[in-house]
């Protein structure tokens, strides 16, 4: 099912354009998220990945283009409306309020969405020892797991995570990968951005390359690693290089 283009996407941001002053960051970018699949959105720094994700999440207005979520087309998508319909946006900066403990955040989400499986989510994210701590006292990895716990408790139909692996230790990366895969297996459409190629190749079913204001769907990680334009333009691999991108399932 992963990466099956015949599936109806949960999220489809089409023909997105965004300009900051005189600089056109995106001109005709498209992002789709399919149920049960993890999509890795990759590209060089400042190329517009985060901007595209913010627009798809309704957190930023595009200059042109539309966002379609769960079959409904939004001319001016807003995050709170998309969140009501099942989207969760994990930004590249802190999400949780420093004024509340992890437990208080989880209780608020449980009450809001009527979830009763908080204990299971806490176990899955390994947060048992950190429930009474507030975000400023958590490590980067614990904080990311706490944010994911909030997202898991929401049980979103679509999760957009901006650079979730940034600054994480290998142990936390592995835990995060397991959580993202579990979400996808439960039918969630997951989109992640980042530069941690080996990890992204491990978690992703599909790779989308953001470059020159647009996006290219490169297919599976193995197919993406074979694309010479992508290799030269992003991976910076030269023919005959000893380095090779890891291939999921290879």
């Amino acid at each position, binding site marked *: 099912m992963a990466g099956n283009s015949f599936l109806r996407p949960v999220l489809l941001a089409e023909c997105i354009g965004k300009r900051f002053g005189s600089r056109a960051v995106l001109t005709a970018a498209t992002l789709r998220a399919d149920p049960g699949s993890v999509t890795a959105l990759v590209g060089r720094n400042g190329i517009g990945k985060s901007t595209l994700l913010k627009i798809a999440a309704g957190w930023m207005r595009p200059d042109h283009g539309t966002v379609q979520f769960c079959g409904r087309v939004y001319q001016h998508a807003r995050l*709170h*409306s998309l969140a009501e319909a099942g989207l969760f946006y994990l930004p590249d900066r802190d999400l*949780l*309020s420093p004024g509340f403990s992890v437990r208080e955040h989880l*209780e608020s*989400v449980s009450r809001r*969405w009527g979830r009763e499986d908080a204990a299971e989510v806490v176990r899955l994210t390994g947060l048992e020892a950190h429930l009474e701590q507030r975000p400023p006292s958590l490590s980067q990895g614990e904080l990311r797991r706490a944010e994911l716990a909030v997202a898991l408790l*929401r049980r979103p139909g679509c999760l957009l995570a901006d650079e979730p692996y940034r600054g994480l230790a290998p142990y936390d990366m592995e835990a995060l990968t397991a959580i993202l895969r579990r979400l996808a297996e439960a039918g969630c459409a997951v989109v992640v951005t980042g530069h941690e190629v080996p990890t992204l190749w491990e978690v992703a079913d599909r790779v989308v390359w953001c470059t020159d204001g647009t996006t290219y769907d490169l297919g599976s990680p193995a197919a993406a690693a074979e694309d010479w334009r992508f290799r030269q333009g992003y991976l910076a691999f030269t023919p005959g290089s000893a380095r090779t991108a890891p291939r999921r399932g290879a």
Partner: protein
Amino acid sequence: MRLPDRRFTAALLRRALYLWIGVRLLVALAGGGGVSDRGLRPLTSRATGLVVLLVGFLSLLEARRRNEHLLLANLGVPETSLAGLSLLSAILGETAVWLATRS
């Protein structure tokens, strides 16, 4: 319009109340309103409106600084709800002052 969870609502109202008290004290120090030997001195309606707007603005800024606008948007709460709650404490405070100075 959806309101935040009661925990966030209470925190927003409490924070806005502290900000209102702070702004009112600053206004009193600057010679406007405050308490004299003849009791509470009222502000003009224009100044009262400015105090309410300033408290609402500062409270919203503080909610943004704490990432609460993004977290709550993920829970389906629009930022207009936060703005409304930010204004509420100041409006209630000014109403209390107005009632006290009227008598």
